[in-house]
């Protein structure tokens, strides 16, 4: 075997190995030991043992002791340090004989795979120790960078064979079981039918099931009925309202600009509706990406869309994506501010679509990931020509013309409207000339004025604009300083991926855009992109299990956490692409697995002892639902939820103290009509300077940066809110009314109905007793304290209490 072949084999072997790391599988151990003895040991002997022998043990390092591969495989610390020093060229020291490039690579590759293995087998001293490794000051891509797991293309891994008789029907279970087997664990038994219906309903719709839905499935909890249930939930329009909001978290959706004045982003809600509808339509994810990043080019150049069609409108509205960032209307420097805006777009694009912290490379090469500043600005040049928000204070030379809206009409439609208007105006003018008296003149003047207005008023969308086909130059900015441009860069993808430079077809002189974003979109939405599909399936998985296979869904880089089961992740990613990027197919695939349907109860003491964190997935996770779901669930239980879909946002009535926190109290906040206020939370306005307090206190997305994982806090102010906020009172009272209506005369029946509506189950005997005694005590106490309508006081109190129990907002 020649040296080059040797190296190639080593590469291939490392890659095969990498796929298996998640399983911490002992199958590779013999190969690894052999590799150590035959390939690494001779090189260590030749270049290292001179100083690091048992006798000399320079730097306290005795490599002789590690001659046995069995011992070598237990020393991640030493190998990590060795890799570092060899990579940096510190070892072997300059005055000593140096290994050839090939030898160096062989050594590094071998040690890297060794390290990966030892880290997986001995996790307590594993990859996380000491945190991620800082890169050296001078940027250079290493072999380890290029072979990083997340940068390798996705291949469909072989499904582990099950030793079980029938074998799992769903490949997910095979992958999960394989991991559990390594830990000598097994899956929890299935959850109860009631738990399953609740889980499915909250996961897909963000709403509780009706008691009737639960009862039906409890009667017939078959696989077929389960599939039907999932299918039914997936076609509900509430699905998009749930999953659309997940996407809105990632693109830090808000309808105002933030900063002091927090001005409105006109028509931002159209983007929100676009996202919701796209989810409901199960729009292929690759198309969803292309529309947001380059929908205007698709629309204007009629790429797979017909002018004036719904797809055409959607493609334009989708580019509102570029307008969602916070925007400073009074920056110190417009030049710097322009780059702040572009950076916001870069950070979000990197995070949301690619799971990469690209933004870290704005001022310097990325400290941990192989992304250089040149990479950053090369990526930025794809979006450099975006015409930015304009300015109140002009001057400084930065930023754009402020064309942040686009009319949702085709050129033909606009021309038709224009000619109709001309006709209208002409006729009105003629009538005016012939006005008989002063009164008629006045009327006709008003008519003329009206004729001059657009009819019907066209729709506008928050959307992108570029000014022609000529791209603006992009330079690397020294330390991110807009006033210190260095070398000019051309659009390119991060060098570590080793992709050819993008090519751009010639643009006609009258093209509205540079066409660059379309190339970026195609690259991100490509099945060959190693990150896109993995990142998305991981997000879907995360919302079904509470934690992703990569537990840091916004960071697939060195500072993130490695996948706990990479074969599973790659299997899902392959299936996702193969299904035509269908998110709904992924839901079905995941939800029909046994893994998804496991009980979340942590009764298995042995499993708890071995894997308390449930990394191997021996049970489902108990999860608290999000802020919106808490609010929507109260509305659903009380029967007051208004299911109206879409349209301009709803402004709920807030206490005046809350408005007091805004710069000018109540500015831009006109309370919506009462019935509108009971709509789903996704339709409530998202104003950066004034979030709806109920949602904000329950960990609503921060709306300033991408949020793949919302924090999950439990605080006393939350409890105060849930006890005393006006909204909760209204819902408790509505629930009380509902249960007297639906439960009938008897108190027991009312209590039972309340439990059914809130928790979808009958109360236990003990709960019935507790509820009854609460009602009786409250009634007596209230009567003694001369409260008006003591029965009602008692019932409201019972309902408020029930709406606040843990079981309502925790999904088993």
């Amino acid at each position, binding site marked *: 075997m020649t040296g080059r072949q040797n190296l190639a084999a080593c590469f291939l072997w490392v890659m095969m190995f990498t796929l298996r790391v998640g399983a911490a599988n002992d199958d590779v151990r013999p190969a690894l030991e052999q590799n150590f003895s035959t390939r690494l040991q001779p090189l260590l002997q030749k270049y290292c043992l001179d100083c690091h022998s048992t006798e000399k043990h320079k730097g306290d390092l005795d490599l002789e002791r590690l001659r046995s591969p069995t011992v070598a495989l237990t020393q991640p610390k030493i190998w990590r340090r060795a890799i570092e020093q060899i990579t940096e060229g510190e070892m072997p020291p300059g005055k000593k004989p140096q290994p050839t490039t090939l030898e160096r690579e062989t050594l590094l590759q071998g040690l890297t795979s060794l390290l990966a293995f030892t880290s997986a087998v001995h996790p307590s001293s594993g990859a996380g120790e000491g945190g991620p490794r800082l890169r050296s000051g001078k940027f250079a891509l290493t072999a380890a960078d290029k072979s990083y797991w997340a940068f390798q293309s996705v291949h469909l891994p072989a499904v582990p064979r099950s030793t079980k008789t029938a074998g799992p029907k769903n490949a997910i279970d095979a992958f999960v079981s394989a991991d559990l087997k390594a830990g000598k664990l097994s899956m929890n038994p299935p959850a109860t039918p009631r738990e399953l219906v609740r889980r499915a309903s909250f996961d897909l719709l963000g709403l509780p099931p009706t008691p009737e839905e639960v009862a039906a499935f409890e009667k017939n909890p078959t696989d077929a009925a389960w599939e039907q249930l999932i299918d039914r939930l997936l076609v509900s329009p509430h699905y998009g309202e749930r999953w659309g909001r997940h996407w809105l978290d990632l693109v830090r959706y808000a309808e105002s600009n933030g900063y002091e004045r927090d001005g409105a982003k006109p028509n931002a809600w159209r983007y929100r509706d676009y996202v919701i509808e796209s989810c409901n339509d199960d729009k292929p994810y690759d198309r969803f990406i292309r529309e947001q990043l380059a929908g205007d080019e698709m629309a204007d150049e009629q790429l797979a869309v017909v002018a004036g069609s719904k797809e055409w409108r959607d493609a334009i509205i989708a580019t509102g994506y570029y307008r969602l960032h916070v925007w400073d209307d009074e920056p110190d420097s417009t030049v710097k501010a322009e780059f702040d805006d572009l950076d916001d777009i870069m950070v979000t694009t990197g995070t949301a679509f690619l799971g990469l912290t690209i933004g870290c490379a704005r001022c310097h090469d990325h400290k941990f990931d192989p992304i250089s500043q040149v990479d950053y600005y090369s990526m930025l040049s794809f979006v450099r020509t975006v015409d930015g928000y304009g300015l109140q204070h002009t001057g400084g030379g930065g930023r754009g013309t402020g064309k942040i809206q686009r009319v949702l009409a085709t050129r033909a439609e606009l021309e038709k409207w224009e000619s109709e208007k001309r006709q209208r105006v002409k006729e009105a003018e003629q009538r005016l000339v012939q006005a008989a008296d002063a009164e008629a003149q006045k009327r006709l003047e008003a008519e003329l004025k009206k004729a001059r207005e657009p009819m019907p008023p066209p729709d506008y969308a928050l959307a992108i604009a570029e000014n022609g086909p000529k791209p603006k130059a992009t330079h690397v900015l020294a330390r991110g300083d807009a006033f210190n441009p260095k070398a000019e860069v051309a659009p390119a993808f991060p060098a570590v991926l080793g992709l050819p430079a993008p090519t751009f077809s010639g643009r006609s002189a009258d093209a509205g855009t540079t066409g660059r974003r379309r190339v970026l979109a195609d690259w991100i939405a490509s099945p060959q992109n190693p990150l896109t599909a993995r990142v998305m399936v991981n997000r879907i998985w995360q919302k079904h299990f509470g934690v992703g296979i990569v537990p840091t869904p916004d960071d697939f880089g060195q500072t993130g956490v490695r996948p706990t089961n990479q074969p599973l992740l790659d299997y899902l990613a392959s299936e996702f692409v193969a299904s035509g990027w269908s998110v709904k197919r992924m839901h079905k695939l995941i939800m029909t697995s046994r893994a998804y349907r496991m009980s979340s109860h942590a009764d298995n003491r042995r499993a708890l002892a071995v894997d308390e964190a449930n990394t191997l997935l021996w049970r489902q996770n108990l999860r608290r639902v999000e802020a919106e779901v808490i609010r929507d669930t109260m509305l659903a239980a009380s029967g007051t939820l208004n299911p109206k879909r879409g349209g301009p946002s709803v402004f709920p009535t807030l206490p005046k103290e809350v408005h007091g926190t805004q710069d000018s109290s109540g500015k831009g906040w006109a309370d919506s009509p009462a019935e509108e206020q009971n709509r789903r939370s996704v339709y409530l306005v998202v104003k950066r300077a004034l979030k709806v307090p109920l949602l904000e206190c329950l*960990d609503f997305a921060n709306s300033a940066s991408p949020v793949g994982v919302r924090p999950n806090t439990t605080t006393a102010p939350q409890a105060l809110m849930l006890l005393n906020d006006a909204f909760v009172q209204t819902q408790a009272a509505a629930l009380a009314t509902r249960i007297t209506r639906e439960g009938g005369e008897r108190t027991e029946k009312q209590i039972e109905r309340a439990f059914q509506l809130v928790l979808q189950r009958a109360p236990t005997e003990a709960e019935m007793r507790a509820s009854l005694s609460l009602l009786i005590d409250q009634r007596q106490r209230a009567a003694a304290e001369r409260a008006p309508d003591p029965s009602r006081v008692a019932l409201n109190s019972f309902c408020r209490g029930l709406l606040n129990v843990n079981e309502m907002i925790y999904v088993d």
Partner: protein
Amino acid sequence: MVGGSVLLPGLVSQLIAEDGARSAPVDPLLPRAPHFTPKAKRVIFLYMSGGVSHVDSWDPKPKLFADAGKSISVDEFQGRKGDFKMFAKRPQWKFSPHGRCGTEVSDLFPHMAGCVDDLCVIRSMKSDHTNHYEATLGIHTGSFTFARPSIGSWLSYGLGTVNRNLPSFIVIAPKSPYAGGQVWASDFLPGAHQGTLVLPGAEPVANIKRRAATGRLQELELAAMAKLNRQHLATRVDDPLLNARIKSFETAFGMQAEMPEVFDLSKESDATLQLYGLARGSTQGFAWQCLVARRLAERGVRFVELIDVGSSDNWDAHGDMLTHTPLARNVDRPIAGLLRDLKSRGMLDDTLVVWTTEFGRTPFNNSADARGREHHHWVYSSWLAGGGTKPGTVYGESDDYGINVGKDQVHVHDLHATILHLMGLDHERLTYRHTGRDYRLTDVAGNVVKGLIV
């Protein structure tokens, strides 16, 4: 749920926990040990919104008096670079030495001037931005550009709180400041560390008034709820999240009782009210804010911030320096009263009082007869008192006209590092992992200013 797993190494599970992928630590407000023995246990942060003129208050500039009206040239004005011909503007208030220490301060704050023996005046503060929004964000979060956690949130995160019936971080503000709620936002830190806003008035805290008709009725309700919750919990192995939520309702119940008590000033003596200059029954003005701050400090609240007015009708004296007069009258006696009150109760030793603003005001103007002053972040003044700071001293100098730092610059980051240090925290070690990197209050800068510390 986190930690203790043999499959997830400690650090990784910590990373996950901090990134929020898993459940956060059970109770983020539990008291946590500082990095080293602290000199101060709590902070009262007095923030004057709009930009108080340093050359009219804490920083005497005889040359500015002498050369008033003369033209001087400066290379930056209102954030624009260039060569500007400006006119030195005479300070509006007279300076004279005060106290045993003899620190020279102006007549603008006569009551505070009487407290100089307790103050450590900083005359070399430096900010990074000339706009209100950014500079306000900077003095509160260390970030002059993007929203980041506020200093109060950082301290709450680092130290937790000792009184579980009250929030760890409370902000009393009659009106919204520049940058609004971002001034007290926890941003990426867990929400429990967010400042709780108190608005002077009849209902100072949202949702503190119970909806149940009486406390007893509410207790019944909560008890029944707790019963259901415990039964629910019993079928799940002792889950910290479920437990924490049960606890949170107990705390909320306590807050309903304790919070109104904090705002009930009826038991304060006439002498105390007089010390602050507060009329009995009034909830108006900075005096009310100061007295409530002392009551909160007494009850163990970690960080209390008082904001003087908000983003309008404030210290932003572009038009006329004399608009400082009524503003000074509103804060001067209450702040002096607060210092004296803390001292007489033995609380000043371990309570750090910080007085600051987002920037100073220009010692010059572009016309000789301008009556106001513009924004000026190159140098300005602040002061510290108590909590292990050097009483009766002056730290740092501005140049002859008060245009730039002359000596011993204290950048906003340095001030933050020093505050954390006094509270027993190393600003370089108080970090939080978010979107793949460790964040600090002081970003990548900041030095503890030893000269401010006893």
